[in-house]
């Protein structure tokens, strides 16, 4: 690890939440406007975070909080790996570790709603993991490597041109990861749901604050993956990620929440088909 790498890691850890939190603020405000409301201030996520952080700690049992640390730590790790331009598959695996840690946390309390949330989160994971990995495979087919660094160094043309279908599939994944309708299945950000807050039900106060924080990092990471599709310059990448982000917010507001069975069917049929077709075309044209 060089000093440069270390610097990247530190910058990612420090700046990540600022950018992520701001994006969440934009999300809240824009959503409100799309609904004809005035909406909260842009800094609302930071207020929420601080408030949650300052609340008294209540728990259900004594091991519950450990998993939140895991969720946070591994999500940050995944984001850092991304910033260090490491192996895409490893990034996906590490991100999954974060997610599984949260699931274990939800399971670790005997609570019906958190149990539902955890089960559904597993299903969500099952839905999106393959697509993420297929995207990695498709990128491999273009760059000959799984390294993010090679996307930046080896390509003349944005990935979007050769992987348009994969990109669409990733947009579906982005909806799941951002917990937006129609896929806010295991827990939605603020909307009401049959499973209450699902996987977050039993976390409160500072632990919930950490979960919010993790979301900020996580959002950046998935947007980062989206950004890879126009990685000719960092600004182009940011622009396409932002566009995708805004698109998700609009989609969230024009769809009802679907059920997990529909989600799996849809993501697997549509998402995997899109990916497979794209990969097949690439493979045959190679």
């Amino acid at each position: 690890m060089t000093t440069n790498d270390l610097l990247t890691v530190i910058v990612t850890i420090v700046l990540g939440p600022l950018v992520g939190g701001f994006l969440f603020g934009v999300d809240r405000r824009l959503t409100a406007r799309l609904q004809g409301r005035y909406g909260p201030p842009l800094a609302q996520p930071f207020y929420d975070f601080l408030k949650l952080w300052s609340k008294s700690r209540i728990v259900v049992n004594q091991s519950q909080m450990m998993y939140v640390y895991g969720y946070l730590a591994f999500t940050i790790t995944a984001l850092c790996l991304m910033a260090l331009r490491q192996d895409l598959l490893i990034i996906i695996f590490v991100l999954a570790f974060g997610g599984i840690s949260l699931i274990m946390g939800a399971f670790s309390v005997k609570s019906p709603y958190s149990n539902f949330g955890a089960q559904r989160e597993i299903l969500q994971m099952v839905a999106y993991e393959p697509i993420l990995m297929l995207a990695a495979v498709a990128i491999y087919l273009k760059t000959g490597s799984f390294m993010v660094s090679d996307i930046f160094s080896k390509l003349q043309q944005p990935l979007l041109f050769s992987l348009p279908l994969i990109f669409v599939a990733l947009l579906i994944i982005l909806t799941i990861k951002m917990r937006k309708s129609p896929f806010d299945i295991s827990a939605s950000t603020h909307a009401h749901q049959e499973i209450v807050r699902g996987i977050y039900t039993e976390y409160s106060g500072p632990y919930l604050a950490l979960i919010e924080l993790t979301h900020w990092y996580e959002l950046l990471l998935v947007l980062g993956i989206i950004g890879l599709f126009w990685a000719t310059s960092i600004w182009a990448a940011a622009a396409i990620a932002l566009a995708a982000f805004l698109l998700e917010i609009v989609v969230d507001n024009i769809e009802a929440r679907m059920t997990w069975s529909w989600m799996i069917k849809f993501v697997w049929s549509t998402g995997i088909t899109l990916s497979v077709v794209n990969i097949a075309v690439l493979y045959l044209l190679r």
Partner: protein
Amino acid sequence: MSRQTVVPFGPQHPVLPEPIQLKLTLEDERIVGALPAFGYCHRGVEKAGEINEYAQNVFLVERICGICSFIHALCYCQGIEQIMGVEVPSRAKYLRVIWSELHRIHSHLLWIGLLADAFGFESLFMQTWRYREKVMDVLEKTCGSRVIISTCTIGGVRRDISEENLSEILSTLKEVQGHLDQIAHVIEKDYTVRKRCIGVGMLPREQALAFGAVGPTMRGSGIAQDLRMTGYAAYGDLNFEPVVETGCDSYARALVRVRECYQSIDLVRQAIDRMPAGDLAVKVRGNPNGEVVFRVEQPRGELIYYIKGNGTKNLERLRVRTPTYANAATLLTMLPGMTLADVPVIALSIDPCFSCTER
């Protein structure tokens, strides 16, 4: 080893606006058993109705529920009027119709919003409630308050609607109708909405009869029955047909309510059109003696009041059977076999109101 899950759904639950518990037994997320536990809203209104003076009861019954408040008062007043043989001025009758129908519109719009919230369509919820506020404004303007409008009294009504306000009602309704078109369009066309409602919570016609369903729940199963056809208040003078859908599922019930909004708008227009001038109320003297069963159509269906007076200022018995009381039983047949995600949709599809039910 059991692979079942047994959980309480309610009384406090974000998708349930009211406290009711469903004890759900699930396999994976498929419901195999559902039993409702009541009593979280029970106050004891029927007994209080025997303690209060019969005239005070108007204020009590309109607070049985804040969503269908006016029609409760209407039913009670008409019942007492029938026992006492009071003839109500005809302007009062028309005003009663107007407020009833405005109440129905606000109740149905409210419900559409809640349904949207139940399947996570937040913006549709916001949109519906945004336009519902127009109706609320009209109510506040004409009655002085928004939800418990408290304008019905024994012998007539307590407030008048000026010509100016009548025309404002018309223009507001026109605007609301335009927005309703948009909302109805989304409900009719949107894939996700249809997917979440069609085939969810089936209640075939025979079942609807056997379980005693009423109101839109019953009309969504293809039974054309609407208490307004009996012609209480001024309904006898107005033209309308019960709204019927034959889908027998949550979607059909949603469509019934959407179409009833249009119907109500139309009824208000007709009533304003034909409204005679005249007194608002007649003075009522004496105490009721005798019994009556009176029925009116609430937004949720048939409301039954059984009133028995004994010649004193206190009633002998006041019994209220609200539409949800009848519809609640259908949950027992609609829930099993569906999934957890459908629970809010199915529960809402009967438009439950437990403060009415438990009184």
